[in-house]
């Protein structure tokens, strides 16, 4: 039975291999159709990774129709400019509002003239003025939805505790996670006396990152935690909380660590000071890169289905994409856990009390 399976597996692998070899061979000739397919896949992945001013579920490339809804655009350009992103027609036309003209260029809004001309300088950056953009973009919308979802879930949970000691509804699922964060993340890292102050932040950041990671895996096509601006903001909050809760010992261990010879202290102080910045920086990069890499891998595998264009290769790619999705589900939880864990660790460093023997 097992041997039979192995033989089949080998046969299928060989078949795939032969088709891929054939595909590679054809690539040398580079038929225009194949090249355009590859650029299309690349464009689609890039478009998915970036934030956008409208919420597109999918587009029909033949008719050029986009299925989705537009979002409000809010600009600060000598007063608030408020209009719908449908005016851009997915970047194809110039939007007019109160006599000002705006044009989308690489998902960024520039102020232009009536024709929407964009002139580029030597570094391929547009020379046009970029008004301050406070638009409700796709990511912002998802953050708001996640916020509302979290508020409903946890407010409902808090309410059910007023009725009795046993939680009802969705709280039954969430309560063990909250207990886990308290008992396994906050208390061991921060200490039993001081952990309470930080619980609200740790819980918020955990569920926020986790929910947004999970939203990224749905076919909605959002990539919120894989956006460096958002992870930067999260890491910045961790950084600020750490610095403001730092006690005497924390600063002493950075600038004038006890029990180290004086020349060493002079060498170590700049390194320690750099470490203060590097810690949240690594936090930012880690979450961003993990989610971004996961999305790229997943999208590329899905794109392979269209590259293969035979039923064996495409179906096996589908299986692979499914497996990667399962791994990504784990990564979504793991990254939220790591972010919370390391934040708690840094808070723990900041509030740690040292005894004299140390």
């Amino acid at each position: 039975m097992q041997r039979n399976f192995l033989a089949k597996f080998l046969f299928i692998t060989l078949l795939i291999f032969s088709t891929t070899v054939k595909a590679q061979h054809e690539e040398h000739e580079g038929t225009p159709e194949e090249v355009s397919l590859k650029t299309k896949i690349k464009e689609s992945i890039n478009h998915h990774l970036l934030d956008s001013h409208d919420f597109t579920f999918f587009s029909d490339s033949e008719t050029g129709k986009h299925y989705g809804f537009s979002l409000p655009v809010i600009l600060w350009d000598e007063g608030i400019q408020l209009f719908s992103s449908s005016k851009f027609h997915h970047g194809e036309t110039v939007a007019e509002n109160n006599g000002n003209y705006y044009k989308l260029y690489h998902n960024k809004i520039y102020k232009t003239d009536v024709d929407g001309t964009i002139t580029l300088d030597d570094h391929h950056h547009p020379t046009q003025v970029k008004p301050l953009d406070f638009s409700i973009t796709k990511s912002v919308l998802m953050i708001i939805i996640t916020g509302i979802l979290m508020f409903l879930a946890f407010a409902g949970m808090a309410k059910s505790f007023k009725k009795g000691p046993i939680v009802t509804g969705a709280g039954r699922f969430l309560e063990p996670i909250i207990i886990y964060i308290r008992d396994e993340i906050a208390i061991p890292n921060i200490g039993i006396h001081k952990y309470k102050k930080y619980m609200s932040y740790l819980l918020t950041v955990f569920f926020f990152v986790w929910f947004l990671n999970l939203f990224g895996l749905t076919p909605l096509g959002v990539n919120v935690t894989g956006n460096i601006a958002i992870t930067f903001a999260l890491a910045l909050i961790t950084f600020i909380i750490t610095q403001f809760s730092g006690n005497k010992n924390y600063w002493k261990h950075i600038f004038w660590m006890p029990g180290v010879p004086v020349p060493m202290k002079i060498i170590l102080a700049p390194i320690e000071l750099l470490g203060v910045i590097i810690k949240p920086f690594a936090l930012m990069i880690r979450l961003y890169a993990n989610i971004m890499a996961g999305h790229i891998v997943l999208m590329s595998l899905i794109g392979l289905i269209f590259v293969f264009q035979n039923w064996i290769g495409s179906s096996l790619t589908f299986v692979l994409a499914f497996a990667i999705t399962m791994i990504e589900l784990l990564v979504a939880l793991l990254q939220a856990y790591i972010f919370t864990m390391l934040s708690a660790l840094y808070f723990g460093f900041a509030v740690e009390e040292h005894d004299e023997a140390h």
Partner: protein
Amino acid sequence: MEIPAIVGAGLVVIGAGIGIGRIGGSAMDAIARQPEAYGKIQTAMLIAAALIEGIGFAALFAV
């Protein structure tokens, strides 16, 4: 001949892979020796792996 930056990034990723592999292996050994400390070992393992992973990603994004 100039060596492309991507080769350096590849080397860093190989290093990070070896590092994370060693952490995982050592954690397995530790758990086998002291199964009661499973939770603590796992936490420490994840933190160390995450720190190395950060370096790997930094190299990839520096390219």
